[in-house]
């Protein structure tokens, strides 16, 4: 036994896996070349990507920025392939603001950054750390944009005073008050004129609410609601204008009025999109609830509305807004075209929203409704505390899809002669300087829309993760 051969008395160290199984090679073997079919498909895919990039990249990078017309571009390029980005530089302001007067362009910018301030406490509360850094960046960008458009000092102060508290969780709650007021602020900033009209329109709500609180103990819930609505409408119709004129006489709070005909470009799309989104969600919730209601009239109105709107293309509704209404309304009636379109877009997306939310309601187990009833909650409390939070959470992907669709649908207004970015692209291409330019404009517009839609889609994913309660 002495001729004992070698015996290993320890374990061999683990060898690293073969180079073909790990790292980049391993990943490629597994994902790209795992069989002859996949290998062929990969090679074809690479060839297609290469062809597309090699054709587009030189054109893209060889772009000319400092040309003032297409013929100038072609002169500079001397027959080489290259994009003519000069059109974006030349018409950037127009693509963003339409015909909004140049010296007033800080107002849409301020309205836009304040919009983000107004929705931030709703969208992100509490703010995660990464978001806080992003928010700091946003504040800097906002200040820079205001500077670019020559905003007055007061605009900076208002922006900072509202944007800084968003960092702090408790302070951000206070900003919610501003969020509720924001639609009125936006109207005043965008259209200008005397602030007192906006303030007295707002007072209508306050007066209605006060009337309700005063009357409720005396004449009961239903009657006090009816009376307070009538009081508010009465205020709007008969007292708003004199009150505003009177106050404007005492303390003038004026911005140069801008007519809606001047609105255009991205600004128009964002305005239509935001009002559509803000208006359609609550309206959609009520329609969805109405459709499930046991009350015959409520139910049939909801069903009728939803099915009618969903049965009609948006373009038809836009044509109704722009042309038919003109014929039905008495001549001389000034019913703002942008407002008409806003109402149509909101109604249109509300119908879709209602169905998305109804899907969420239907997905809730029956037990949730029964549990809410068993707790002794009345209908509205049950909806608010038990049903809706769950139904809305389920519907998030659908809701955001509807929002994205709505935002993209705003480009349809170019068909009725409103100049959004696509409409402006047409008008720009009709000038002698830029006649014949195609790709640059449309690529730019696509890029801008992509930024908006992609952020919305990322936000919805963040929200889903945040509200995730499963295990």
């Amino acid at each position, binding site marked *: 036994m002495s001729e004992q051969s070698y015996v290993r008395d320890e374990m061999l160290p683990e060898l690293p896996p073969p180079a073909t199984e790990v790292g980049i090679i391993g990943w490629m073997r597994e994902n790209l070349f795992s069989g002859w079919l996949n290998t062929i498909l990969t090679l074809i895919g690479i060839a297609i990507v290469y062809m597309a990039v090699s054709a587009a990249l030189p054109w893209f990078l060889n772009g000319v920025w400092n040309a003032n017309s*297409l*013929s100038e571009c*072609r002169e500079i390029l001397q027959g080489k392939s290259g994009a003519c980005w000069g059109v974006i530089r*030349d018409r950037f*302001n*127009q693509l963003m603001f*339409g*015909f909004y007067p*140049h010296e007033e362009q800080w107002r849409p910018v301020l309205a836009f950054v304040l919009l983000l301030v107004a929705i931030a406490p709703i969208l992100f509360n509490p703010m995660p750390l990464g978001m806080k850094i992003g928010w700091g960046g946003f504040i800097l960008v906002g200040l820079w944009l205001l500077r670019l458009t020559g905003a007055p000092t007061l605009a900076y102060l208002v922006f900072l005073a509202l944007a800084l508290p968003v960092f702090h969780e408790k302070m951000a709650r206070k900003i919610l008050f501003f969020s509720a007021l924001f639609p009125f602020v936006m*109207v005043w900033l965008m*259209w200008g004129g*005397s602030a007192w*009209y*906006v303030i007295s*329109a707002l007072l209508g709500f306050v007066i209605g609410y006060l009337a309700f609180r005063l009357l409720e103990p005396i004449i009961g819930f239903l009657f006090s609601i009816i009376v307070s609505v009538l009081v508010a*409408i009465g205020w*709007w*119709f008969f007292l*708003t*204008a004199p009150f505003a004129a009177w106050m404007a006489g005492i303390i003038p709070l004026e911005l140069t*009025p801008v*007519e*809606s*005909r*001047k609105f255009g470009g991205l600004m128009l799309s964002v305005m239509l999109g935001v009002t559509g989104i803000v208006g359609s969600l609550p309206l959609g919730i009520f329609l969805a609830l109405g459709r499930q209601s046991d009350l015959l009239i409520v139910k049939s109105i909801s069903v009728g509305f939803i099915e009618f709107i969903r049965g009609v293309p948006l373009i038809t509704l836009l*044509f109704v807004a*722009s*042309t*038919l209404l*003109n*014929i039905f*309304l*008495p*001549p*001389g*009636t*000034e*019913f*703002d075209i942008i*407002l*008409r379109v806003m*109402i149509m877009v909101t109604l249109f997306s509300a119908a879709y929203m209602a169905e998305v939310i109804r899907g969420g309601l239907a997905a809730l187990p029956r037990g949730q409704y029964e549990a809410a009833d068993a707790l002794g909650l009345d209908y509205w409390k049950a909806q608010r505390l038990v049903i809706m939070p769950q139904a809305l959470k389920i519907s998030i992907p659908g809701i955001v899809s509807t929002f994205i669709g709505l935002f993209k649908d705003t480009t349809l207004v*170019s*068909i*009725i*002669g*409103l*100049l959004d970015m696509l*409409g402006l*692209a*047409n*008008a*720009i*291409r*009709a*000038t*002698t300087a830029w*006649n*014949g330019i*195609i790709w640059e404009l449309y690529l730019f517009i696509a890029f801008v829309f992509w930024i908006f839609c992609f952020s919305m889609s990322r936000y919805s994913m963040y929200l889903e993760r945040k509200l995730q309660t499963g295990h």
Partner: protein
Amino acid sequence: MKKTVFFGALAVAGMAAGVAAAGTLDDVKARGKLNCGVSTGLVGFAAPDANGNWEGFDVGVCRAVAAAVLGDPTAIEFVPTTGKTRFTALASGEVDMLARNTTWTFTRDVDLKFEFVGINYYDGQGFMVPKSLGVTSAKELDGATICIQTGTTTELNLADFFRANNMTYEPVPIETNAEAQQQYLAGACDVLTTDASGLAATRASFENPQDHIILPEIISKEPLGPLVRHGDQQWGDLVRWTLNALISAEELGITSANIDELAKGTKNPEINRILGTEGDLGGMLGLDKQWAYRAIKTGGNYGELFEKNIGENTPIGLARGLNAQWKDGGLIYSPPFR
């Protein structure tokens, strides 16, 4: 306007006090602004520049009318209209006049109840094809795919032309002129058809214009002119004679350069009547004596407008052709100012 912004739908019922009875002229004067319907963008005829100021041949007519009525060529609200919305915009009163490359036809004049006040451009429908197609006449286009703008007279003319010549074609319907250009260049259709002025403008914008030819056949008459609503004769007269003033000014040699000189009084009584130093033509229109002076001073006479926007020195490079003064063998002719 403020009120309508806030109470929109509600206000509709309350503000239903609009009156159609008042004349357009009074409306425009009260408003202090002329609402002029223009194209959403047509090369040389109407397009906004980088500062949002509208420019073009049709826009020039709007500016002349605004100058005549309000004394300010910038007191205009340009309302961009598409081929589909233009007539409702005019009929509903959203615009006071339409200067939007609109062909004067029987049905539009009679059935749609509009009033064409004159012709500011004589156009005709033509065809453009790539040279490589090897076609030299429109009669050889049997079986071609043709890009055609929907809702325009060109669509109908095309059908008539092909039926009359016993040929078939495949239409590719498109919405705007700009889109037509792109479809044609991308090869979506063999032939692009629209008014000859549009074809020339489109061809001028190509990187290699020499690769495309405009076929010699002009298959239709397209008299383009400004129009107003039926039933308001005073307003119609005003727009008509503003256009005629521009035309007569060219004929009589009144230009934006020498108009101040001529306005002091000349030996030619017609010039004097136009410029208001003799008689009171403006008073008959409900305007002051200087109305035509302002209209011509704004953008120059008809010939100046033509040269500045679509003439041979512009990239579009249209020759006067049919649109020369009658004295020079064209069709542009204004009735006398008397």
